[in-house]
């Protein structure tokens, strides 16, 4: 009798779960994308709310680098080289970290170097990326190399 009741409960639970099982809705799915330069599809954070997570100041720089490393890795692994679109993505990440002048931040290029290494880009392909992503700026190419060698 007890078993029968338990099975009925399990069955009810299963049916209800099947009927109502649904995944969380994306908060962003209902928001409008008024600004094309500041979209952040595919990643989400609560910074835009008046109630925000306490910033971990010591980790801000690390987080920026990590995001760029991941982005560079994913970009060169899965997309055709398109430097303007790559830069738009960089600007998007930088803006979420409070950086507008990302070209002047050496961390940007160090992280790009790390990302290229992670994606196992070597030889001529690496040199081409290095040159094109920096506009052949010597200092920036040095930073990419620094990041590349550090991994």
């Amino acid at each position, binding site marked *: 009798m007890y078993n029968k009741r338990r099975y009925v409960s399990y069955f009810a639970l299963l049916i209800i779960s099947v009927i109502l099982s649904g995944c969380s809705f994306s908060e962003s799915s209902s928001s409008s994308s008024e600004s094309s330069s500041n979209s952040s599809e595919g990643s989400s954070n609560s910074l835009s709310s008046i109630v925000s*997570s306490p910033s971990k100041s010591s980790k801000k720089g690390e987080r920026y680098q990590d995001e760029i490393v991941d982005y560079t890795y994913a970009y060169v692994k899965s997309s055709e080289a398109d430097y303007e679109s790559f830069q738009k993505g960089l600007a998007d990440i930088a803006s979420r970290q409070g950086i507008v002048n990302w070209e002047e931040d050496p961390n940007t290029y160090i992280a790009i170097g790390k990302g290229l290494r992670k994606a196992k880009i070597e030889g001529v392909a690496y040199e081409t990326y290095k040159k094109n992503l920096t506009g052949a700026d010597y200092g920036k190419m040095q930073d990419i190399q620094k990041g590349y060698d550090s991994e």
Partner: protein
Amino acid sequence: MLSFYRFYALTGLSMHAIFRQSPRSVINFAKRFHTLFMLPWLMLLLSTSVSARTFDYIYIDASEGNASGGHTALRFGEDVFHYQYFDGGFIRVIKQQAVDFEFAYRFLGNRTLYLSQIEVSDETYAMLRDYFILQTHQQKQQFSLLASLRRDRSLLNWFKNFGDTRQEATQQERFFLAGAGLFYKEADFAVPDQTHIESRKKSAVLIHLQKAIEMSYGTEFLARRTEELRNQIKQLSPGFEGQRYLGLNQEHLPATGYSFADHYLDLVTGYLALKVLQDSRELDANAYVFSDLSVFELTAKEIETLRLFSKKLQKSILQLLKSNRPDWGYALLVSSARLITVNKSIKSGRLALLDVFGQGKDVIGLDAIQKYAQELQIIASQALEEFQKNSRALQNKQTFTERDYSYLEMAGNRYLELRNGLDYKKNIRFNGVNLLPTKNVALPELIIPVISGPEIDHALSRIDAIEKQFYAQLQRAYGYNLITRNCVTELFKTVEAALIQKITGNTKEAATKESIKAESVRRLGGFVDSSGIGFIPFISFHAVQNQYNVIASRRLASFRLNQLEQLYRQENDVLVSLRETNTMSSTLYKWNPKDSFFIFFTDKAWPLRPLFGAVNTLAGVGETLAGLLSFPFDAGTTLKSGTMGILMSLPELVFVNMRKGSYQYLPYAQLSSKNGLSN
């Protein structure tokens, strides 16, 4: 190694059991034996643990509304990956910071999280994380491509109907220029085809900057650059060869490219940024905030830091004028606006900050301010702490960075918004606060590319054809299905795909089901099949517990249950139970309009669940009847709440709880620092 096995065989211990323990448990185990000869083995075990890493499989229990079946996610360090439902019927992967994920689900959503800590090798950890990163990026690229096609079409239609005011109302999508709202109002562009925009007031700071630009690049630079840009915009062509958009491939994507619409919007933004400098235009009066509060007063040392920062900003602006980055115009607008506010701060001795609230429509209205006064006061105190913490960066002028300034700007905005709302009983803007200001204006009819009608028609027909095909491919790849493609199935499919990539490597040989299983067992300790009933979140959680190499499990109680446990420790159990089991007298819950109507919480009192469920069902029926009467007056809000109340109460009749009640406003300080997702 053989003697290692023999040792555990002799002591009657299962090696499997030992390996499933955390390093801390292993140390406790060693302490129990108090034997010196254990030490070498202990060292060996700990070294194994050091080379291994863990990630979490998270099951989030069911809740009302859009996640009635529960939810699942994977946490790798600071990042949580989970699949969410998007408009258009798509299911897509999201990467979220662990602290934000926890706040959204455990605290605001008031749902309990169950974690299974899975131990894997460093290599497997990196392989899985990297694959999720890749998936996140790929999907973002693919959906960006779809969005850019749609933007291109909207923009071309706008060009096509240019000057026809009747078409404005039917415009599919309005375009906005981020950052331009710092200096312009829409009324500034009221005259069509205005080729020069007069500035009523000049900024002394920008007059000074203009001189610096002339010294660096010559007196004609700004005028020449503006004219060049104007011609560039005129000559812009959609140029839809189209081929690059075709062929959605999971492994290799077409480049998203720099879309026609994005290119046009960036160029117009750049043009307006140059006009700001050329006209030494003053900031819009609503673009910055200024306060009499004492915390905004600056010390001499802080002013010195801002002086140095002002010089850095000026240098950045000079470099941006030569930059090739596509969005240099936006960067120029923000940097110029900041240069003005920084100099206002230096001059006045009080911090002036750009308004960093975007176009978010959610506000905390006066009723809510009254209802949640206590919570909002805590949030305001916390915002003040954050502001003061960020202000400390001003103490060191050498290390003060642009990022420090952005955090200071945002923290100052948050605090002022809350303070003004609470002190002067004004609406509080709830969403849209950014680390960089995005104040925008609607795209004005300023400079239009010279494209002929047939050219536009041709581009539009190409876009239609490409979009149709591309959308169908996305639907096939990411269309949501309750059973075969949901938040559970997609997590495991991604794990499987990562394994398959490892099995096949560069070979074209397909992986077999057996080889995938074997690889999963080798790397994760077992194999989880999300087909059958495995698509249900709580069943998948048990499958992970049984199959994978789970070394520890944790339960992170929902916000209300967590607070309830504290109350039980502080007060009389019976009184707490009587008071907190119902929504009428609860001190831990205030009815959230997003929740359906209910009387009793049933997430804890499971023996009474059917009884409480019956009362909740009756309450839902009552609310539904009231909703039928009030339908003409409240557009069906009460009716919806009542029917959802019934739906959420029925499972309680058979001991199943879904509804927990959720929260609208909670301060982050409520996050438990000792036992959280990131600990």
